[in-house]
């Protein structure tokens, strides 16, 4: 945590969507080059309420409702960013990355490299990820997919303190940063969070690319992110009651992936469980397991496992959704299995 900011006054209790709106507001006040654009961000205040009142404060030129033309308004963001502005573009659901991937990965992500460093693309993409009962086309996280492309930073906060700090960091970054917000948090009160519920009123940043150990423990390391951090902390309580102490690492960033922090922990516990709400294969969980293999070597590991969406689309029915999204009980069971190995 940023000790400086943490000493100052705190924000009153509010829900996370308002926290995001507040953060957007504060950064936009501090830097006139910041803009917000996307579907329903202006007059509607955001589908999830995360851009409420920005239009009133900053006007149409800086807070812009767009047509349903994701590819082109993301590309417009690229043009704005290359002209000295700092657009914050909202792609309503992460599942819609498929309609705008080109401008993200071939323009935003590569223009700096292709220009030999002469062009920056300081652009934030906010998108809502995760399951809240909206089935296969509106429940994906997909951070593992975007993380595959060099040139992007990818973050997925888990708690209020990080939502504010990482969003501010993204908006101040000179690089394209994709911020994955989890749909389940928008209507939650800050005070309902186990970790990071106290949020400084002053602006601060959480460094992109740094994980945080949110619970210490010597028996195994559980690395996770976004909403799964709370599920994991709940699981850790149960494990603790069973005599197993889990160290829980909140990755916070997918790219850069703070493998050092995880490796340091795994170096001590020799056991790693990755808990991810993205598809299991070809994503974050495999990457992190491999990074650990590379960092501590096979001899540094006693047991490794992962829990993630088991490579099926997200089903609609609640009973099925619960089978494919990692749950507290599964985290407990898998952790126990790894420790007993």
């Amino acid at each position, binding site marked *: 945590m940023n000790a400086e900011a943490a000493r100052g006054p705190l924000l009153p209790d509010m829900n996370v969507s308002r926290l995001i709106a507040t953060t957007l507001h504060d950064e936009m006040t501090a830097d006139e080059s910041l803009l917000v654009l996307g579907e329903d961000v202006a007059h509607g205040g955001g589908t999830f309420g995360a851009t409420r009142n920005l239009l009133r404060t900053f006007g149409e030129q800086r807070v812009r409702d767009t*047509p349903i033309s994701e590819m082109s308004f993301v590309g417009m963001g690229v043009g704005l960013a290359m002209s000295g502005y700092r657009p914050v573009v909202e792609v309503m659901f992460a599942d819609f990355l498929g309609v705008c991937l080109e401008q993200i990965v071939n323009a935003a992500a590569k223009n700096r490299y292709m220009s030999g460093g002469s062009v920056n693309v300081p652009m934030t993409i906010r998108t809502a990820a995760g399951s*809240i009962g*909206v*089935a296969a086309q509106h429940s994906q996280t997909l951070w593992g997919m975007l993380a595959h492309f060099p040139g992007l930073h990818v973050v997925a906060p888990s708690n209020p303190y990080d939502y504010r700090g990482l969003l501010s960091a993204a908006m101040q970054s000179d690089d394209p940063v994709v911020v994955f917000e989890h749909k389940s948090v928008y209507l939650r009160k800050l005070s309902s969070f186990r970790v990071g519920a106290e949020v400084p009123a002053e602006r601060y940043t959480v460094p992109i690319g740094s994980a945080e150990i949110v619970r210490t423990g010597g028996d195994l390391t559980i690395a996770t992110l976004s909403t799964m951090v709370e599920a994991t902390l709940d699981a850790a309580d149960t494990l603790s009651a069973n005599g197993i102490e889990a160290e829980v690492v909140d990755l916070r960033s997918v790219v850069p992936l703070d493998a050092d922090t995880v490796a340091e922990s795994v170096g001590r516990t020799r056991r790693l469980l990755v808990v991810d709400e993205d598809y299991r294969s070809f994503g974050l969980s495999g990457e992190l397991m491999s990074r650990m293999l590379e960092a501590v070597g096979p001899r540094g590991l006693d047991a490794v496992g992962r829990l993630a969406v088991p490579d*099926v689309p997200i*089903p609609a*029915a609640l*009973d099925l959704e619960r*089978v494919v999204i990692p749950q507290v009980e599964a985290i407990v069971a898998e952790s126990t299995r790894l420790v007993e190995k």
Partner: protein
Amino acid sequence: MTDDVRLYERMCLMRSFEEACASGVRDGLLRGELHLAIGHEGVGVALEESLRPADYVVATHRSHLAAIAAGVPLRPMLAEIYERATGLSSGKGGHLHLFDPERRFSSTGIVGSTLPVALGHAAAIRLAGEDAIAVGITGDGGTNSGQFAETLNMATLWKLPLLVIVEDNGWGISVAASASIAPPGIAARARAYGLAAFETDATDPLRAVADAAEAFAHVRSGAGPALLVATCHRFSGHYEGDPDLYRTTAEKTRMRELGDPIANLRAGLIDGGADPADLDERAARIAAEIEQLRREVLADSAPPAADAFTDVVASITPGGNR
């Protein structure tokens, strides 16, 4: 029963069906964003009157009326919306993803993505030499998706039997069509891509039925693809639970007073001599039937957990499918 009374009944059924879905949200039985087409019934019957069994329909996130129009049986449809094992997709698709291959009906929750799929159906019809057309539906907001333009161009290039229906309720969530669709507008776009453009006011269902029939006839005749813009109102919020603060109360009152296709047809029927009590009784009977259906569906069980892992791919491969 006159034909117009039949239309009235069909619209009542469509509305009752949507209300049966809405109550699932109120009762906490349905999660996610449920999009209802209450107010769109004029488009629903216009579609239903002109569709034939061999036609394909690809519908949007607001798909229920189109599904009814396409002849998808109500029970498995409602069961799918309620995510039951007895649903069209055994509860795996949910309300955003209704599929009924037997009725050549499908849908998608992604705006704009309906049209290319409908184009593919139109190409298939041509290849198979079938006497049918493909109907691709979009909202007004969806006409701003690149897929709209791309599809229209190809439909004209290859003169495919595609009818694009734009359910123009004037809003894409909180953004008014006037703020998202540059003038001269949707019909002009269709013409610029070489399609025949038709327009109708679907708050007047009889007019909508007639105008749609013309658009269908154009495409069936082999004259090439067409687009029909059908204006209507979305009475509910964008989804059940949407506070809908972007529209003024006055506006919402006005649209209900003037723009209700069912009330409008009812008034016309009464002007023509129909007995209001008879009409209301018909509506009540239909509502009761749908309520009965809903009860049955609620008694159906959820899909078994193991179902989560099936149907990902058709092929069986030696070492599993990943």
